[in-house]
């Protein structure tokens, strides 16, 4: 019984110390990862001839300094956050929902369709003449359903056709984007007659989200819906049995199936929920008080950004709001960074630099966690050898 001597529990202070020693690499790993990513970005900035301190000042100035800027940042944060919440479900179930970008776009198209049907048309279906609240409600329903359906295409292709969701997702993204362009460009059916801009007309007054009195670009509705989505996802992940099933099949789909989890049905459910939240994000984007039209890029890349958020938060529902907040600050700050350096320093520094920073952070943190598991394995991962001993005695 070699294992029993080895596993003798140290008492009192010894145990606390061991516990801290175990925890330390776990705390330090993301720290080192982020530090490495920041170092890389600082080096790039220096190489481009930009002062990192000035760069950070621009990011801060563009997002957090004044209440108005903070409101703008929150308006960007909400669709990113709700998409990330949906992705937590999909990624927990082991589904690489790269199609989330397309689901956002289709959600945006769905919301626009609802506006066209119920607010712009002179004869709405079923003779429904709705007020603003009714129209907006239908916009969100349409967006969620459209996003869910688009996600279900990938899910059914996976469960029925064995097509990996990564590839169907990529293809569906391109199809969604092209479909959007078809609607609004070159005399497409949704482009206002005579217009050459690739966008729809602005939505009528009764299809615009209410906004805060002093911050015209931020709508409280998006905040409420996002909080609601967070509660749903947190309940699923931390309370419900379904969340446990998703975790199980994310770890090992075959074992979960053999233990009685209906894996195929859960794939459909997780993807549909994820798609509906992405669809709502699409609705946020087109209905936002300062947009109120379907543009050529309704998603603006927040789908891929949300995937990075979820990877960085390692699929934790609790961490996701914070990580998406940081990424929203960086993304919004990137715009100010680009314009600031261009106007004040006459330096061409493309805003894609912040996206480089975001993906570098994720890469470095992922690598740091890998290094930690390799060189400082957590105690729970160690006793594989001991178990063997126990079996034999």
């Amino acid at each position, binding site marked *: 019984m070699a294992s029993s001597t080895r596993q003798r529990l140290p008492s009192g202070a010894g145990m606390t110390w061991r516990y801290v020693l175990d925890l330390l690499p776990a705390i330090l790993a993301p720290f080192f990862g982020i530090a490495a990513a920041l170092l890389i970005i600082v080096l790039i900035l220096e190489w481009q001839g930009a002062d990192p301190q000035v760069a950070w000042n621009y990011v801060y100035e563009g997002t957090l300094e004044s209440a108005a800027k903070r409101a703008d940042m929150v308006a960007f944060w909400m669709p990113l956050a709700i998409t990330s919440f949906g992705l937590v479900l999909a990624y927990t179930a082991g589904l690489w929902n790269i199609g989330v970008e397309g689901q956002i776009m289709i959600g945006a198209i769905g919301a626009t369709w609802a506006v066209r049907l119920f607010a712009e048309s002179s004869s709405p279906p079923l003779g429904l003449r709705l007020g603003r609240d009714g129209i907006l409600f239908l916009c969100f329903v349409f967006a969620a359903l459209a996003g869910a359906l688009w996600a279900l295409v990938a899910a059914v292709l996976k469960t029925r056709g064995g097509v990996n969701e990564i590839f169907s997702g990529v*293809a569906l993204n391109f199809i969604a984007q092209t479909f959007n362009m078809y609607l609004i460009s070159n005399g497409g059916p949704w482009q206002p007659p005579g217009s050459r801009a690739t966008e729809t007309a602005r939505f009528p007054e009764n299809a615009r989200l209410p906004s805060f009195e002093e911050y015209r670009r931020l709508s409280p509705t998006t905040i409420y819906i996002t909080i609601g989505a967070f509660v749903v996802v947190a309940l699923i992940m931390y309370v419900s049995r379904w969340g446990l099933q998703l975790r199980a099949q994310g770890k090992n789909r075959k074992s979960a199936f053999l233990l009685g989890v209906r894996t195929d049905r859960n794939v459909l459910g997780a993807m549909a929920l994820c798609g509906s939240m992405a669809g709502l994000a699409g609705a946020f984007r087109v209905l936002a008080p300062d947009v109120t039209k379907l543009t050529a890029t309704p998603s603006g890349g927040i789908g891929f950004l949300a995937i990075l958020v979820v*990877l960085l938060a390692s699929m934790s529902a609790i961490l996701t709001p914070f990580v998406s907040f940081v990424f929203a600050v960086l993304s919004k700050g990137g715009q100010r960074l680009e314009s600031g350096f261009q106007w004040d320093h006459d330096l061409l520094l493309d805003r894609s630099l912040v996206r480089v920073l975001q993906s570098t952070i994720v890469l470095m943190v*992922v690598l740091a966690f890998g290094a930690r598991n390799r060189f400082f394995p957590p105690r729970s991962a160690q006793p594989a050898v001991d178990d063997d001993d126990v079996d034999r005695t």
Partner: protein
Amino acid sequence: MTGLESTLRGIVRAAAPIVIAGQGELLTERAGVINLSLDGTIMLSAMTAHLVVRETGSLVQAVLAAMAVGAAVALIVVFSSIALKLNQVAVGFVLTILCADLAIFLGKPHFNQPGKEMPHMPIPLLKDIPLLGPVLFNHNILIYFSLFLIVLMWFYIYRTRPGLTLRSIGEQPEAAFVRGTPVNALRYVYVVVGGSLVGLAGATYSLSVKLGWKEDLSGEGWIALAIVIFGLWVPARVALGAYLIVGLRSIAIDLQGNKVIDLPSQIVNMLPWFLMIITLLVATSGALTRLDRYAPERFRPMMRRFTRAAPPRALGTTFEKH
């Protein structure tokens, strides 16, 4: 040159980067590793080749630099998989986004600037063969390489001893290890070589097929990844998939100019993606194997060999020696 000849020649040319990237990914996956970073790697290496050729004027250096970029990205993938035991899909996906954004950021000052093209090198004598000559032997060296690579890969994988070892580390790494094969060391080699081929594919874009740097390469890498599955990890079939997709794409573009069938250009742009889904569905749903039943008895073994859908068994797993 007749219309058919020039169409086919255009397909061979336009498909060359996808063929090269597909063969590179094939080599990687045959060794048991998925390199999902193709889309970003192709963009970054294409941008690198364009940048180097503008700075130095040397095409050789541009090609080598692009290959080095591809190899470096692949090295991160294989290192994180073998040494750090990380999920290959996760790392590959983050890298694809990182590389694409890095390409856009670093390439901004060189966006839409004139580049330099690979010199046209028709092969004497061979180029005069009817049909085959203009289609296959009237290109630049990168396009020739894409054709040569298909044969080379087939020969290497199926007709040489190292090729057999390569298949064994992708199918049965434990068995290969017991027989004394350094599984992980070989995986490093094949993934890095495969990655450098992906880099070469990027160079083929910016030095030949889509001259210069225009940020419009997004999607090509995903097509290359998909045709490896469609091609069921067999070099010739992977190449066939590339020619099929590019061929249909060029037919679609021809249709667009044709006023008889008036398709909106967006529908045409969707076609390759529908095609990608359908081809994957055909390759992975087992529909092909079911066709077997309707074939005459004599041809069944042959058909089975052609339609057998079997990814390398150890694909995406890490190998640990016990």
